[in-house]
């Protein structure tokens, strides 16, 4: 009996010391990690919508109605205090895991400005090519009014996206995510003829 207590106390001490060490390191690295994640996000925003000078997460306003489950975040990019672009964080299921990406839309032209894959677990050499800019550029300047389609040949129509060779599932997953964002954008933003109609906070003025 005394032995068990002795052993238990010993293990308790070891775990206690280990826990103390961990909490110290956590206190040291926690803020840095948070800063890094935030910085990555800001860099991502800049990449998909470079013209904005301030980006605000307005998911609370725009994602309260039933929406596509892939939509994770709606961020509005402001220029001189006026909403100029919308940046969506979207997720969809790829070939071997979730693909998460950012899709930027310009309110004035109702076009996709750019997309950026944030994380993916697709096959190296095949689906993982989705991370390359040569693929992501295929979504640039696409009109937001029309649903995007995946094609295995060279795209003949404006709304077609050429699939990555031997990775149609990946391409379809990315396109599905972009389409979810595109649909939400068309409903909530493209209808407003001038960007000024949408005020920070997401309330829309009465038509003049």
């Amino acid at each position, binding site marked *: 009996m005394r032995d068990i207590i*002795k*052993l238990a106390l*010993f*293990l308790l001490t*070891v*775990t206690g010391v*280990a*826990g103390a*060490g*961990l909490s110290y*390191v*956590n206190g*040291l*690295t*926690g803020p*840095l*990690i948070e800063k*890094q994640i935030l910085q*990555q996000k800001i860099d991502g925003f800049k990449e998909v919508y470079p013209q904005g000078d301030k980006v605000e997460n307005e998911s609370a306003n725009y994602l309260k109605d039933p929406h596509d489950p892939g939509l994770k975040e709606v961020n509005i990019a402001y220029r001189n205090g006026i909403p100029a672009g919308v940046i969506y964080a979207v997720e969809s299921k790829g070939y071997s895991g979730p693909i998460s990406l950012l899709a930027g839309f310009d309110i004035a032209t109702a076009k996709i400005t750019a997309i950026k894959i944030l*994380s993916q677990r697709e*096959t*190296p*050499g*095949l689906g993982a090519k989705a991370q390359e800019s040569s693929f992501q550029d295929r979504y640039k300047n696409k009109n937001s009014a029309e649903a995007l389609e995946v094609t295995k040949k060279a795209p003949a129509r404006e709304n077609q996206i050429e699939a990555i060779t031997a990775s149609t599932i990946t391409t379809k997953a990315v396109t599905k995510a972009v389409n979810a964002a595109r649909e939400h954008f068309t409903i909530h933003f493209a209808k407003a003829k001038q960007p000024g109609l949408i005020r920070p906070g997401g309330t829309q003025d009465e038509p003049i």
Partner: protein
Amino acid sequence: MSLFNEFSKGVIRENPLFRLVLGCCPALAITTSVENGLGMGAAFTGVLVASNIAISAMRNIIPDSVRIPAYIVIIAAFVTMTDQLMHAFTPALYTSLGIFIPLIVVNCIILGRAEAFANKNSIIPSIFDALGMGVGFTLALVLVCSFREVLGAGTFLGMPVLPGSTPAILMILPPGGFITLGCLLGLLNKFQKKSA
């Protein structure tokens, strides 16, 4: 045994991956690029040195019957610290190594060195043992990585080395890991037998 011997045995005679065939899981999973191999090797060596020091220092007070749980707690603490430090300071590497950093906890080389060396030897030889094993494992990983990255992606440390040829994607997929490790182990055994 001299300190240099403690060090060199891990690099060649008792190389953890090629001679002891331990740590195969990360050796198969993350060896798709030389950068991954170096990163994994560095993280692994850091954890091994720290855990060997801690366990060697406590070798006389750890009760025999609970030594394994005590080792695991110590190792897990160091791995978690490494994980957080890498997340904070080397985010790109952290992303590409992913789950395999936390999995160092169950890397049998580290527990193996604790059980086979650190709990019987004083701190200084334990450090050299850990450094040797760490360097040996890193070199082994980099060797596997080199074959797989050059053949599978046509690059070395990200620089193209095989211009104008189509890389064999198979080599950076999981089967490529098994093929490379199998061939290397076979070749090393062949040479070992000859010299013996």
